[in-house]
């Protein structure tokens, strides 16, 4: 049963992402990606990473996708944008994607992952354990990522704050 669920979710994931990259209307692309993200969140739950799956929904679906939708509406781009696309580029792009997929898969095909998931600690996906990891093992990365956010924030301000001169 759970195995079937995995394959269903995977299929949804793949199909929606394919639809996402091919759809002309950006708004729909965002929505397809949203579906994809939800199914990824479902996969997280199946992997017993409940905390991450919630964070994933909050961050991606709740924040990032909303940001996208907001920008699309803000720029009034909900109508399909006519973008000239040569067939050649399409073919090349699809071919490249397929090649990368093929190369990576063949590289990994022979790998014996060798892990017998018999002994699985169900708690590793819990907030308490992850929290300890984040604030102990990963304290330094956690701290320095504040710099990352700070610079992203400054960047957004620089880009879109109105000049004095504009007024």
């Amino acid at each position, binding site marked *: 049963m759970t195995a079937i669920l995995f394959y269903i979710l995977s299929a949804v994931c793949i199909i929606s992402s394919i639809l996402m990259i091919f759809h002309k209307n950006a708004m729909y692309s965002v929505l397809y990606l949203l579906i994809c993200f939800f199914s990824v969140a479902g996969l997280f739950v199946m992997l017993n990473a409940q905390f991450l799956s919630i964070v994933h929904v909050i961050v991606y679906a709740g924040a990032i996708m909303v940001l996208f939708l907001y920008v699309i509406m803000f720029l009034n781009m909900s109508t399909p944008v006519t973008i000239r696309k040569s067939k050649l580029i399409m073919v090349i792009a699809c071919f490249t994607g397929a090649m990368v997929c093929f190369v990576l898969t063949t*590289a990994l095909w022979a790998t014996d992952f060798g892990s017998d998931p018999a002994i699985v600690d169900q708690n590793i996906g819990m907030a308490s354990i992850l929290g300890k990891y984040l604030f102990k093992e990963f304290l330094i990365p956690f701290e320095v990522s504040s*710099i990352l956010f700070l610079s992203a924030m400054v960047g957004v301000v620089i*880009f879109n704050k109105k*000049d004095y001169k504009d007024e």
Partner: protein
Amino acid sequence: MNTIILLAVTGIFSMFSGIFRQKQLALPAILIAFILALGMLTFGWIGNYDDILNNMLIFDNLAINFSLVIIFISIFIFIMSQYYYSDDIEHLTDLFALFVFSIIGGILLVSFQNLTMLFLGTEILSIPLYILAASNRRNLASNEAGLKYYLMGSFATCFLLLGITLIYGAYGSFDLTDIHTALATQGISSLFLTGVVLILCSFIFKLSAVPFHFWAPDVYHGAPTVLTAFVSTVVKVAVMGALLRFMAFIGNYNSEKWVILFMLVSVATMIFGTIVSIKQKNFKRLLAYSGMANVGFVLIAILTAGEGSSGYILYNLTAYSIASILAFTIYSTIKSQTGIDTIKGISGLVTHNKLLATGLLVSMLSFAGIPPLAGFFGKYFIIFSAVKAGDTWLAVIAILTSVVAAYNYLRISAYVVNDNNSIPVLKITTRYRIFIILCIALIIGGGILPDQLFGLLH
């Protein structure tokens, strides 16, 4: 670690000085902080943070030397920025803060000991740069540069992430030491190989080496000149440091494979960078391509000397950086006062602007590798390491490309000493004059006393 904290505080201070309308404080504060940081690094006061570091970062000699060079070059970039950004630019202090944050990223990158830090360091280094590249809001070229840089950077990040995750998948850890132990016990797996190749690809992206070089000239051309100087100097030092660390870590395993891959990359980069640069008419673009060729050069040292090459690489990059900051400074002065940005346009610079012309000539001759300028020893060390490792053919290719590259620099110098006097007297302040003289002195001094400089770096 102390350095990182100091720099982070400085960056935030710079932002606040903008908010409280005390812009003039930002630059002196940053410069003082940099000098303090240099002192801290030189005297080994890096602080004992082992209990919280968890082997995420390591401040060994390599990290300290690379950090020293990063900060040292950054001082020049900041002094240069003073002549590039006019005082009334709105977000000046924010831009400064972004530079500082990016430098922090660079320092994280050269001292990473955990793949998470490699990833975060790359991002902290890059994200401010995307912003800075597009910071000239009204200028479409700058917008495009920022966008391209952003897209390519994010794209490379995806590869980096996939690579890191695959390595994690192979040995169940992000820690270099753990992976090293696992490698020794479990042997190499194809998962690991794929991961390493992907990470190397993203390094090649960041270094703008062939075959992932195509974004570089546009970004270099469109971005504000200070940023161009920053990207072609500090960023390269940081990424080279990270690459050196990474190569040292994987070096013992399947060394031939990496060597062949990197030989191809380095040879292709040298050849491509040099040949394309011959065709360039725009000064900034030419510098971009020549920087690319130099990256190919430096890769030779990584290949042939392995871990021992840090001194060579640092010497080369420092010499290259000072010369290119000098060239960029002079270029931006000419550009801002006359609007000229082509190579032909600078013809006759020597007639009315002796100092600028001298500076440009010195930097060009240093690029061309003429003794006893610093650039010569930069090239010499690389050729030396290639010859010593027995890869004489690499040295020969390096020489052939550097002769072709010399053509470019000679071409520029020929224009500079031309007889026509189309360029009027450019206004330069005394401080600017001192800066140029300092750069020239460093280039010549680095060539006359390479031992002293090299001793500092080794």
